[in-house]
């Protein structure tokens, strides 16, 4: 009797487990499908509309054409704005790489009094003084310096904003590069700047590449800083100019916007996945989004 009851109980337990397993599988699949729908559907427009002969705001399979790209390449403002984004991105990248490697190398090799405090302060500053929180004084400062409507001014502000994070991350890289090469170079009489350029920079290349890509991605998509500091459309980057593409009827020019959005997005997406594949994702505090 007891044995029988026991076995029926096991059967019950098994069937309950099967049910649980089934429900778990269902839940998992439904959730995955919902997540995919949520993240994929808005992006479909970016995939289809640029190739659609009659792009609308809705997502639909395109009536294939490349004419939208012709519209784009015939629009000097649009092409120039992509060039402007490139100038801002590369300009800031050069500034933060040069100043960042000098500073992080010096911080990594020499125990300047107050070094840890300085690093801590830098990290704190970069997280609390964001472009948004400091937009008013930054705007006024640039007015006083006569740097409104200057791409150089935008590069300085953007570089100043990301440089603390750059120094912080690069110092980590510099700390982990082997020091014996520098010692030998020094024995042969090389000067510090020469050692930095010929020995340390090549060793820290993966770190510098990561930082370079990161800086470009940060600046490429930045809207606020160029939006408040630049006046002429001819100097504005893609992120700002995109919102001026209207037809004569006052409607968004979808042919232009769709092709433009795709061309504007591809570089950062490509770079991001390239870096990810090569170096993997890294997490660092204070990275501004």
């Amino acid at each position, binding site marked *: 009797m007891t044995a029988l009851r026991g076995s029926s109980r096991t059967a019950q337990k098994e069937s309950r487990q099967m049910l649980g397993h089934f429900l778990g599988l269902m839940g*998992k699949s439904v959730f*995955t499908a919902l*997540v*995919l729908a949520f*993240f994929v*559907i808005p*992006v479909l*427009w*970016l995939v289809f509309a640029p190739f659609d002969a009659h792009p*609308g*705001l*809705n*997502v639909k399979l395109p009536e294939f054409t490349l004419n939208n790209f012709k519209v784009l390449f015939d629009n000097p403002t649009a092409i120039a704005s992509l060039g402007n984004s490139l100038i801002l991105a590369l300009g800031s990248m050069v*500034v933060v790489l040069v100043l960042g490697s*000098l*500073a992080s*190398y*010096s911080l990594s*090799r*020499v*125990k*300047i*009094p*107050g070094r*840890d405090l300085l690093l*801590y302060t830098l990290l704190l*500053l*970069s997280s609390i*003084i*964001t*472009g*948004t*929180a*400091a*937009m*008013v*004084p930054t705007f*006024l400062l640039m007015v006083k310096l006569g740097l409104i409507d200057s791409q150089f001014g935008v590069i300085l*502000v953007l*570089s100043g*904003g990301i440089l603390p994070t750059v120094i912080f991350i690069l110092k980590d890289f510099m700390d982990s590069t082997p020091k014996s090469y*520098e*010692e030998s170079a*020094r024995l042969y009489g090389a000067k*510090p700047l020469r*050692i930095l350029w010929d020995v340390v920079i090549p060793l820290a290349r993966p770190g510098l590449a990561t930082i370079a890509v990161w800086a470009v991605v940060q600046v490429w*998509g930045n*809207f606020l800083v160029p939006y408040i500091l630049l006046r002429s459309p001819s100097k504005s980057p*893609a*992120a*700002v100019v*995109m919102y001026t593409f209207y037809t004569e009827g006052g409607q968004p020019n979808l042919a232009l916007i769709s092709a433009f*959005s795709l061309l*504007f997005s591809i570089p*950062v*997406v490509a770079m*991001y996945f390239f870096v990810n594949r090569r170096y993997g994702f890294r*997490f660092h*505090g204070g990275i501004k*989004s």
Partner: protein
Amino acid sequence: MPAPAAGTGPSRAVVDDGDVAGLGKARAVAFLAPGLLLISLFLVFPALWTLYLGLTNYRLSGSAAKNPQFVGIDNYIHALSDDRFFNSLGLTLIFVFGSAVIGQSALGFAIAWTMTRVRKSVRAVVEFFVLLAWIIPSSVTTFLWYAMLDRSNGTLNAMLSTGNTAWLLDYPLQSIIVFNTWVGTAFSMLLFSSALASVPPSQLESARMVGAGPWAQFRDVVFPHIRGHVLTNTLLITLWTFNTFTPYLLTAGGPDDRSNILPIFIYRLALNDGALGQGSAISLIMIIINLVIATVYLRLLKERKS
């Protein structure tokens, strides 16, 4: 805690202190100077200047632009007795809580958790698209959502058969909350993925052996391992969401200030209406809130290191 600066006396320079290239202190400072100068001028100075500007009646144009007067804490009194400021602060709280704490954190965790138990190919596809939302420039993502939510041609109305619902006009705050969740979930997902990968499988195995259900497994095995990450994640995305200006491109704070979160409020007050002094006062309040969040975060980071 002693100051970190202590302990580097002059005698230490002679022994091996890592200065293998013979940089020396003077040159080290010279290497450091250009970077610090840039940071001081374009990051630190604006923040300090906010302190002063917030105490003046500075305006973008008119007589107060040429000769700004010192008005003391008037701007702060004004802000703290202004309904628009409190409306904005309240909206910001809901926005941050809804899109960062609930939206990004919970969704990011749920995705990371589910992806540990699906096929690798499925996981790769899901992670790719979640990441894509994060990487695409914000001007483009806002346009994608503007298209999604459009009243007459939007895909959302077509999918839900909700007729001509004008989502951005009728539900502006909800719209930017969903939008910001969509954009930012990737970070939480990645962080929790790596956190979950650090949970020893043997512990989960033994929990399952003794018959622990999914909830018990989560509470007793997984959660203790990821507790630190939950905190880190919450603080970081709170800080970022609090400072995001991107919703401006979707609703511009409207209609009727109903999505007027602090960054947009400051922009409209200071740079559209020209009230630079008042805008600065509110900026300073924002910087102080940032400071509190960041200090807690950095303290946690330090504790974990030691």
